[in-house]
């Protein structure tokens, strides 16, 4: 069995927490695998989710010098990124607990607020590039590069005391001539057939169906436009707004099993395109 990891699983692999039930289940799956793969597009997703969240949090700490303000903001911010926001929220609080213990409890609130902000800022400087560099750990082969996503080769860029994720690259835009090759991938015979199957499946689902999430509606819009015009709209505009799951599923080679923790979208997408997949969930594991 060949495994293709999506961003959600890689996130768990990087942190590799000993009490993480997802890692326990993934460990069992990995024992049966011949090889483990991921793609440059997945790495881009990682950059624009966890790494981007870390950069934003770091910038907030830098600007406010207040842990509480940044922490409160993360709560609000995570509303928009339900999947990653809470994880950041959790892991940074863990850092405080582990790193300071009881000595911080003796300080007044104002001092705690400032000292924790300073230390978190320094710690984020250290772990943002570390998280990025660990992405490839545990993979059997170099990243697949069917989309030639330029963002996967850039990662967090240091600017002063903070990092940020670049939004424009020398290899952008998605014009098919340079850089992103999402459009040519979708025009490939096999991908086109699978994308068309997905579009038909989504068109067959009423918009009122609760299984048809916001992301699936965006995928449907994207595919409709693609099949009408034969062109992809800008990858920067689209790839970061909901079509990531579709791209990862379509770029996965048919002999691989896509491994994810995200049931909602992948169940619909993978079923429609006849892609083997495996959902690692602490509730019930599903596969096809």
């Amino acid at each position, binding site marked *: 069995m060949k495994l293709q990891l999506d961003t959600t699983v890689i996130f768990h692999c990087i942190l590799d927490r000993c009490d993480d039930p997802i890692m326990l289940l993934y460990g069992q799956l990995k024992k049966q695998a011949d090889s483990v793969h991921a793609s440059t597009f997945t790495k881009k997703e990682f950059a624009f989710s966890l790494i981007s969240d870390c950069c934003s949090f770091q*910038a907030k700490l830098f*600007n406010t010098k207040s842990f509480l303000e940044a922490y409160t903001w993360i709560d609000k911010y995570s509303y928009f990124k339900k999947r990653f926001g809470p994880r950041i929220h959790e892991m940074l609080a*863990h850092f405080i607990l*582990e790193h300071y213990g009881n000595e911080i409890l003796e300080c007044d609130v104002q001092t705690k607020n400032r000292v924790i902000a300073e230390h978190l800022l320094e710690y984020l400087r250290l772990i943002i*590039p570390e998280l990025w560099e*660990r992405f490839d750990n545990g993979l059997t*082969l170099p990243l697949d590069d069917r989309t030639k996503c330029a963002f996967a*080769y850039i990662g967090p860029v*240091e600017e002063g005391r903070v990092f940020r994720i670049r939004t424009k690259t020398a290899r952008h835009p998605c014009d098919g001539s340079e850089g992103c090759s999402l459009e040519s991938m979708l025009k490939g015979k096999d991908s086109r057939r699978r994308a068309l199957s997905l579009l038909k499946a989504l068109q067959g689902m009423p918009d009122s169906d609760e299984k048809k999430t916001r992301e699936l509606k965006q995928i449907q819009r994207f595919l409709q436009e693609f099949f009408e015009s034969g062109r992809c709209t800008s990858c920067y505009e689209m790839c970061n707004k909901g079509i990531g799951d579709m791209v990862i599923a379509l770029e996965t080679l048919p002999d691989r099993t896509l491994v994810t923790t995200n049931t909602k979208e992948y169940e619909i997408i993978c079923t429609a395109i006849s892609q083997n997949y495996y959902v690692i969930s602490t509730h019930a594991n599903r596969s096809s």
Partner: protein
Amino acid sequence: MKYSPQNFTPSENEGEDHLISPPLRSGQGGTGDFAGRQPAPQASTTTPVQYITYNITVNQTAPAASAYQPTYQGTAAFTKEAATARSLRELLSQLGASLDDPCNFEQTRAAFVSVLRDLGARKQAREPHFTDILTMLEVGFACTDASDLSAESIGVLEEVVSALAHELTADDVRHFRKRFRESGIDILRPLDTAADVSKLIKELFT
């Protein structure tokens, strides 16, 4: 554009319409850092190199041969840091000898972290990467169990400690992060705890 506190305010990506950092200012177009590729350290900068891994072939233009030259070798540039580094190395020698003695190990480690924190006073006077190395040492070392340390990892710690007496660059930080990772010292270890987050924050701030 060089960073200066006067001209730089980082983005915070607030709100859904601003999830991604704003576009770069002119002159900051990226060329990538080859992260995720398989660089060939000895390869020529111009010759395309064929990488062969198992049964697949990946054609890539080789990145520039590593230009990294440690700046932390040679004569110490900072006297106070050099003296502290000597003390820290002595403590590391003691630590190496007490890996099987948990009580002695914890005492020596506490002494090490205490001496290290004294160097925090030098942060303002030193380059930013000095702070990075201090944080790396403190976080990596304070959160590593004796069972995870070996003669090799103690050697890496000695190397990093010695570097404190020299001017440090971003390349040095990158190099030491890699050395830490290879020797089993994990700077992500502080994240490996199970805790009730909201309860913790309440306890801290009420």
